[in-house]
């Protein structure tokens, strides 16, 4: 029994509390209703659950398809050690989005309706179909890690792994195409709401903007996760991989920054950024966190070379990305409708609980499956240098 519960540590206690509060919030959502559990109104029908749970959840899970494409399609073999971590991260990200649907839909028991009722003219239909397919693709891509440990019959195991390997390239290609589509279409959702979206965030190129921002954000989260794997799960990871990832991320952020700036000028919306109001404030928060600060920090060699600094720079990127998605889905609509939406605590609690469950699942997977090479015993916090020698952190 004692082994089952394990040691009571600070993080275990915190996780338990978050899960318990989340469970109570779920009770409120399902048995007490929307008015008790949310601040959603007719003027703001989408809130934190869509803006954070769905938009950020999908966007930050973009790392999986990038690394898979790099290794399998472009032959960048050196990223292979990161493959399983990135697939697992994306898979759990999409799982959290699917679980999120269960409480953000008004009639969650009809979540399967898009499978049989099709509306080809709906951007949301395309998003939901792509997300369903891509979650399946991720499950199949991730499955070997589970199958090789969980299926006791050698024949069956070999048979499955052989077939999985045969279709793998197809899966990776499908993953890239599906991701490219639904990452952009998430932005496309707001195209039809022209006139209801604040000009700082409305653009006919919302699709492109969403796609271009999701990839560096997915990479930033991957770098953070890899750092934490080394920090607390005794993972053996070459630090230069993270440096390379952050270099690519920096280029992508630069591309996005130029695109965003030109787009604002093209839409004639630049003057809104210099008004003394809430929207301009949130706009600059997004720009500083997602673009200005990371681009400045990453161009500094010391930041790229110091794991802890790189970690916090990536954290800034992730926060900036969240600011962007919340701005598009909440600030921009709120500005026009005057809804003054602020999430109610059960909205935040449920979101936190799903995230925490994801972190726990990730940790268990890394501990019990072969996700990333690890040191057998807990040792000092260390990085693997490029030549394979162990460097002191």
């Amino acid at each position, binding site marked *: 029994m004692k082994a089952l519960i394990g040691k009571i540590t600070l993080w275990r206690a915190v996780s338990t509390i978050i899960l318990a509060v989340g469970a109570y919030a779920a009770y409120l959502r399902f048995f007490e209703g929307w008015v008790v559990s949310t601040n959603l109104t007719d003027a703001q029908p989408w809130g934190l659950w869509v803006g954070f749970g769905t938009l950020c959840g999908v966007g930050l899970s973009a790392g999986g398809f990038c690394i898979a494409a790099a290794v399998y399609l472009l032959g960048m073999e050196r990223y292979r050690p990161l493959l399983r971590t990135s697939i697992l991260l994306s898979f759990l990200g999409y799982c959290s989005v699917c679980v999120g649907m269960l409480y953000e839909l008004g009639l969650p028991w009809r979540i399967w309706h898009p499978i049989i009722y099709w509306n080809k003219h709906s951007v949301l239909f395309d998003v939901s179909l792509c997300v369903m397919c891509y979650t399946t693709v991720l499950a199949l891509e991730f499955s070997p890690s589970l199958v090789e440990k969980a299926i006791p019959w050698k024949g069956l195991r070999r048979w499955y792994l052989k077939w999985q390997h045969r279709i793998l390239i197809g899966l990776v290609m499908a993953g890239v*195409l599906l991701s490219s589509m639904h990452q952009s279409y998430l932005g496309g959702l707001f195209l039809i709401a022209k006139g209801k979206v604040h000009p700082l965030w409305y653009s006919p190129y919302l699709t492109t903007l969403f796609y271009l921002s999701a990839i560096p954000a997915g990479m930033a989260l991957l770098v953070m996760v890899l750092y934490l794997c080394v920090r607390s799960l005794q993972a053996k990871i070459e630090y230069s991989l993270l440096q390379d990832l952050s270099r690519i991320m920096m280029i992508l952020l630069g591309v996005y920054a130029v695109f965003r700036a030109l787009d604002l000028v093209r839409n004639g919306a630049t003057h809104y950024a210099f008004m003394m109001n809430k929207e301009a404030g949130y706009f600059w928060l997004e720009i500083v966190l997602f673009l200005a600060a990371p681009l400045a920090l990453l161009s500094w060699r010391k930041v790229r070379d110091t794991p802890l600094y790189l970690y916090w720079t990536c954290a800034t990127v992730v926060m900036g990305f969240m600011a962007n998605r919340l701005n598009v889905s909440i600030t921009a609509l709120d500005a026009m409708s005057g809804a003054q939406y602020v999430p109610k605590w059960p909205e935040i609690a449920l979101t936190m609980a799903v995230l925490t469950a994801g972190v726990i699942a990730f940790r268990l997977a890394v501990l019990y499956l072969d996700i990333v090479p690890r040191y057998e015993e807990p040792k000092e916090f260390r990085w693997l240098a490029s030549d394979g020698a162990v460097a002191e952190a």
Partner: protein
Amino acid sequence: MAKKKAILVDVKRCIGCQACEQACEQAHGFPVEHPAGLSDKALTFVDQKGAKSVRRMCLHCEEPACVSACLVGALHKTPEGPVAYDASKCMGCRYCMIACPQSVPKYQWTKLAPYMKKCDMCYDRVKEGKPTVCAEACPVGATTFGDRDELIKEAWNRIRTEGDYVPRIYGTEEFGGTSVLYISDVPFEQLGFVMPPTGNEPLPMLSAAALGESPTVVLVGGSMLSALYWITRRRKAVAEAEKFGKFEGKGK
């Protein structure tokens, strides 16, 4: 095909008696007392704009944003004109509420199994050839129901014969045309009417532009990825062969 029906609302004639509201409440069994504005318990509402009373309701667009947005096709434009809602398909995503330029669809936030609510232009009655309950209830002919073509003629007729109307029918062109038409003696901008952000282009065109790219993405993207994969595989094969010296004897 059935002739396209419509509602003509004459803001000049409206006396603000709220008979339309009451008829609608009665027909749907909604409470008489409710907060101002449209809601899940008020599908039409008489808005006081200065001295004028303006009926708010679903405009039943000819090319509705909500219909194109609904992922499961729970909303559809009927041949008779009303934009009808099939509650049995709805999954409660509330994208119609985001998409509607007038923010007409409302949600049953107080229910555990909530549905969207909006005016359906008494579709069951219209199918039987009856007018909507609000048009029947209006004592001064400010809300009239009929064939869309006829109502447009009638509206122009009123504008021509009585001099004080704004020479415009709101709803003939706006958002690609609507099945609820308004005429008024005060400019529409002053009465809180939503002016289309896209000129008169129907809003679904905006998402169609993005979705139109999917086949291209799949085809071009798919072939590019296959090409990349082929190159990668070829490179690996060549590298392997070179490593084992298989290419050395080629020239001999």
